[in-house]
């Protein structure tokens, strides 16, 4: 189950985006991940963002601010991104459970300092921003309209191992 990281970026320029905004509780009655697909970010109210719009459909990476994914423990939040082919989130910081859920599912929750994030946000003025992720080198490359930024990110050995193993179930099952 190798996942693809990188691709077109969707910018959600606000801190504290919570899991109720990512996937409202009323959809937690679904018992399959696929069923969540149409409801991604349905309750997010943010200028210029439309949960039914083309930008979200095209997105492969979400870029946001501090404390992303706060609120409930629902893994439905990473899953709704996963089934929409978004396997990478880049933000200044995360709520612990959301961040762990991303890596547990073999996905990437990349943390960048605010100044680096600002440089990616600034690229929007040059056109559609595309992200490439080099996990072994721990680099994010963001490009738009001929301009680009290459930024280093920190990731623990454990989180890297989880992504490489395909997730925590695979890792734990092989080891315990």
């Amino acid at each position, binding site marked *: 189950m190798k996942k693809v990281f990188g691709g077109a970026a969707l910018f959600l320029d606000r801190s*504290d985006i919570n899991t109720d905004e990512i996937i409202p*509780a009323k959809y937690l009655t679904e018992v399959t991940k696929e069923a969540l697909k149409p409801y991604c970010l349905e309750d997010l109210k943010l200028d210029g963002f439309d949960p039914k719009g083309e930008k979200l459909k095209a997105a492969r990476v979400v870029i946001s601010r501090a404390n992303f994914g*706060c*609120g409930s423990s629902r893994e439905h939040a990473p899953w709704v991104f996963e089934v929409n082919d978004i396997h990478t989130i880049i933000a200044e910081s*995360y709520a612990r459970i959301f961040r762990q859920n991303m890596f*547990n599912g073999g996905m990437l929750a990349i943390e960048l300092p605010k100044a680096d994030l600002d440089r990616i946000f600034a690229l929007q003025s040059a056109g559609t921003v595309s992200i490439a992720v080099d996990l072994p080198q721990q680099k994010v490359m963001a490009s738009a309209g001929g301009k680009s930024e290459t930024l280093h990110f920190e990731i623990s*050995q454990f989180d890297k191992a989880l992504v490489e193993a395909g997730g925590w*179930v695979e890792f734990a*099952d092989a080891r*315990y």
Partner: protein
Amino acid sequence: MGKTIAEKIFDAHLRDEPFPGAKVLNLDRVLCHEITTPVAIADLEVRGKDRVFDPSKIKAVVDHVTPSKDSKTALQAKMLRDWARRHAIKDFFDVGHNGVCHALFPEKGYIRPGFTVIMGDSHTCTHGAFGAFAAGVGTTDLEVGILKGVCAFREPATIRINLNGQLPAQVYAKDAILYVIGQIGVNGATDRVIEFRGPIVESMSMESRMTLCNMAIEAGGTSGICLPDMTTVDYLWPFIQSDYANKEAALADYKKWWSDADAKYEKVLDFDLSRLEPMITYNYKPDCVKPVRELAGAKVDQIYIGTCTNGRIEDLREAAAILKGKQISENVRGIVSPATPKIYQEALKEGIIEIFMAAGFCVTNPTCGACLGMSNGVLAEGEVCASTSNRNFQGRMGKGGMVHLMSPATAAATAITGVITDPRDI
């Protein structure tokens, strides 16, 4: 160098450290409910690993939507029920015996000082009130917990919060925790354990400590935690009396978990709450907090008293003391949901249910219900709810609805007038 209670629990449960800083802990309790567990069960089945590490350490309850409201929620309950039967998980609580997980499991005596506890639910931090390390996790962590009895954590630093002074009349644990969250922010304790200390905490009942720890997650905290003392022993005594000669012996044993005097904290925050007022949230984040009087007169449509934060017997007593002999405003709907069957029965015996009903409240069975906008009191677009729950996110209790968080006393006072009201002004 001394250690904090969280560090001692980590040391005692360390199974593996696959990479520096990644601590895999043995688990004493894996708690399950019907919203996040069925997906884990289904995935284990697909992987051909439908097993459990130890059925006696797994406890399960149907609580979020119960009795089931439609065929989807009925399927979730059925998946949990069938799984519990299949694996001989005998502590499984279904209709007639079920209640809100974070009220029910402590009441059954399942949570003990020094335990490691996980659940696929963010408010698992509630159980830290017993001196346990209790953390909410996602479905994958839950799945591995069920299968292997372990969970990985980055060892969290501890923020010690001293609640000093004495709470004034009509000011409660809920007001205290709302105030603290307002001070440190929704991100103030991310990846941290909050150790609640100080004279106010020491004089609190277990119920109040649970209210305090319940909302640690609203500041991003991994677990809230209180040191186990005689209040803890008294609460647990019916379950532990065969393990110890007397209560003093139990306390002496539990003291081994106490943070050392020279333990290292990332931060120590002191709050003197002797002049604290009843607090309330405005807006859509739990750190948007102000005194109730600053919002007094704002209109509400519904009152909701219950949940894992404030659906315990002392919460119902607190509200009933204000509602006694009074009627709620005809402009509001009142809903009360005792958090467990035991609490419901106590409330019946004490005449509390009668007070609520005479005042015009609807009494529901124990369930999460409207707290997360799934059943039993979902809001319509544009409606406002005065709620004793823990989360005021946009749409939390129904799309387009707004929630103000407050204590049961403030909720009761608000029910009577139909507008936000400080309980001291009734």
